[in-house]
């Protein structure tokens, strides 16, 4: 044992030494950095495929989506509004627990789950009625790939929110300790941001 360690522990220390953590970035923030990085690369690869199919490809169709297919812009727009609203309820839930308003937390989380589920359900219905399938060309593969990837993220977000909601109803979380709501909240907003990018680039532009 070094002299420094002896000074700290009086030469009577048992068990493993304390973990060395030289990095001044807290592990949770570092984890979020790495997570956002991987997600950006994952979505980035899908967007690269999308722009290749639509722009770089010399055989790219003149219209998007190629004739005679159509994207349900209006329904997707309503779905976008639902998802964006769910971010507001998520934010309300977290602000509520910060003010020690447990009812607000529970209501906010439930509304967020409800709207997230409505988004997913609407997307499934959209898939069923959209009139093309993955075998109808590269554009269809990219469309289902991008929107499906996002849908998978929504599903994961709903699972996280469900866990947070169960804990909220079991009396967990307080104004001082609400990390278990904050992290799913960050994830949910990230999923919303990605959907806005997907909706604008794939459906609108």
């Amino acid at each position, binding site marked *: 044992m070094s002299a420094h360690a002896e000074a700290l522990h009086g030469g009577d220390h048992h068990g493993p030494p304390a973990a060395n953590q030289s990095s001044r970035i807290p592990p949770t923030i570092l984890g979020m950095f790495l997570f956002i990085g991987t997600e950006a690369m994952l979505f980035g690869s899908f967007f690269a495929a999308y722009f290749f199919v639509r722009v770089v490809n010399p055989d790219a169709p003149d219209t998007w989506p190629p004739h005679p297919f159509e994207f349900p812009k209006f329904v997707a727009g309503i779905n976008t509004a639902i998802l964006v609203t769910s971010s507001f309820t998520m934010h309300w839930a977290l602000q509520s627990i910060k003010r020690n308003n447990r009812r607000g937390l529970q209501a906010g989380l439930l509304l967020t789950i409800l709207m997230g589920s409505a988004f997913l359900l609407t997307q499934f219905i959209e898939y069923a009625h959209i009139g093309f399938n993955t075998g109808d060309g590269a554009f269809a593969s990219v469309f289902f790939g991008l929107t499906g990837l996002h849908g998978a993220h929504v599903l994961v977000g709903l699972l996280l929110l469900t866990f947070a909601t169960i804990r909220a109803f079991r009396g967990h979380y307080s104004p001082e300790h609400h990390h278990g709501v904050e992290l799913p909240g960050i994830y949910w907003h990230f999923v919303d941001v990605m959907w806005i990018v997907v909706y*604008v680039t794939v459906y609108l532009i």
Partner: protein
Amino acid sequence: MRNPFKSEESAFRFLLGTIAYFALIVIASLIATWLAFVVFIVLTCVAFAMLRGGRKQPAPGEHIEHVAVEDTWRVLVIANETLHGDRLREEIVRMSAGVAEDVLVVCPALNSKVRTWTSDEDGARDAARARLDAALETLRGAGLRVRGEIGDGDPLQALEDALRSFSADAIIISTHPAGSSNWLERGVVEAARARVDVPVTHVIGDTTISVASDEAETASRA
């Protein structure tokens, strides 16, 4: 650079910003394609500027009280690549002349930012350990009572960490000359003087330039 997903609140603000960003681009595209392109360029520049605007303010000065130990002159040395310098050894010997010295050499484990972020610091600690061991051998050969530690990659953090368990009477920070010293560029010496209530002496590598901050205090130790 500001991390927009640092907290739920900042992520929510980022979402609102994203909505505004794309809404303006879509509205512009309905008017004219070139206008959408211009709006896209302008808004992207604004977004980058806002994200870069989150530069962290330097930490406020923190005064660390030290309690001197009677009859012993305790010297804390912070150095890494200049540990082998003759100038540093001479300065330690000069400070320790005629007193019962207790010298603690702290060698910050210098590391790249990416490796620091990912806590991949084994290589940096090994390199610092090798330098430290060689320097300790040299200093002990000069008759000094000296011991060493590997410190945080940030020299100021390493200094503060050491001071919490070692009540130094004097601090020596050894760096490369100005122009080739990363520590000097970051103002480590000035920050250390502002932060701790202990005389800080700056030794520059092997080039015999020494900026002693509190010569009077150093001289009065005996």
